[in-house]
């Protein structure tokens, strides 16, 4: 891809641990890759799998989820809910052709500013190596097969010529 391409990572951080850790990284003046857009949620248990799919479908190259360590959730159970959803979603995303590294879950406590830096840097490099996911471009490429027909039918020419006259060429009959 072009030299300008930079990984775009959407991060969902929980208010009580990981977002606070990101704050700590900030006030500690830790430098890390600027490829991550952080969205603060009250809990990693609030991460609806729809958010992850939506982020990817709208052009994110990867999604990072940060929550409290096991036994540490502010709401007792939220991080476990997140973990269980994550495990099945990861399997489903694999079936849908999305590389496993593109969705990552990390437990980062409020004291672990250093870990925020490490995880974001690591993930940025992993995604840079993988290349763009580019789902919006894929949607556009898939839908190119429809464009010819739109013009044809809107011009009122449908059915005057057989479909195949403007259909993509198909393979030979005998194999």
């Amino acid at each position: 891809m072009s030299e300008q391409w930079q990984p775009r990572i959407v991060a969902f951080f929980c208010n009580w641990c990981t977002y606070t850790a990101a704050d700590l990284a900030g006030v500690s003046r830790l430098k890390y890759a600027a490829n991550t857009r952080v969205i603060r949620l009250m809990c990693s248990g609030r991460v609806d799998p729809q958010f992850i799919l939506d982020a990817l479908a709208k052009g994110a190259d990867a999604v990072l989820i940060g929550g409290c360590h096991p036994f540490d959730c502010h709401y007792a159970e939220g991080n476990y809910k997140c973990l269980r959803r994550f495990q099945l979603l990861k399997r489903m995303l694999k079936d849908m052709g999305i590389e496993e590294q593109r969705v990552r879950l990390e437990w980062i406590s409020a004291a672990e500013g250093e870990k925020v830096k490490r995880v974001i840097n690591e993930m940025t490099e992993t995604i840079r190596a993988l290349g763009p996911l580019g789902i919006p471009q894929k949607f556009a490429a898939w839908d190119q097969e429809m464009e010819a027909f739109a013009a044809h039918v809107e011009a009122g020419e449908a059915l005057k010529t057989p479909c195949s006259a403007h259909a993509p060429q198909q393979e030979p009959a005998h194999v």
Partner: protein
Amino acid sequence: MSKPKVAFYWCASCGGCEETVVDLAEDILGVVEKVDIVLWPVAMDFKYKDIEAMPDKSITATFLNGAIRMTEQEEMARLLRRKSVYLIAYGSCAHLGGIPGLANQFPREQILKFNYEDAPTIPKGEQTRPLTAFTEEGRTTTLPALHNVVRTLDQVVDVDYYVPGCPPTPKITRAAVDALLSGKLPPKGSVIAPDHALCDECSRKDTKPDKWDFVEFKRPHQKLMDEKCFLAQGVVCMGPATRAGCDAVCTEGGMPCTGCFGPTSRVRDQGAKILSSLCSNLAAKEEDEIEATLAGIPDPVGTFYRYGLAKSILRRKINLPAKS
């Protein structure tokens, strides 16, 4: 005053939706009395060129069932859109992609190769692929071409209303027809069915526990199921993530919901939502225990998007070629 004109058309579908129209039984006579049917390929002999000759917007309503998968279907969808005041996506395939939408997990080439060459029912040496055009003695016959992507009707043309279901029940169909004939139409883009979850009208609702704590999942054929809520028995039921309106015919009949009515208006992606709901209610807390419980759902895409893959957020397996 002339009667309103109505068309029925089918695309990538099994014919079950056509059955439902017939299942209106004697009510169909009431409908036929009030409308002129101008196109209904399954039952009546009209030609496409008759439709082509009609002025734009001269059909009051077209009920189109089936997903859009071939060039001919796409042409007819566009043509009927132009000729109709209201275009209604009728049934799961037109609404969500339906069962044909599951083909969005495979490249077109693989589908053609298997079905026309590799399937065990095709004798060796007789493998033939359909051609889009064939000329013999100066005459050319044609066939439509297969698209790479299976689409819902609203991914091809503008849709006014949706009638959900695989197939829509006679009750739902009657409600849609009545709304049309009486002019009491909901806002454009509505799904003509109740906007709450199936569990609400399921007779097994009283046995739905307050807390789940799933320890295993079973598929219907792996278990002797009783009268209780399917989820309480560890059987995946799409009820919580599926729109009501079918009178819970499947759960009444002893089978869990598979999700054909699609999600309610508040949910964008039915599969992601049921995944979220089931997983959050697992008992396990350790990764390997969670994995063991989730092993009971071997095919999440086929289970959670049985009817909705084409309409899901990702639409299709992402690494498939646009053209093959």
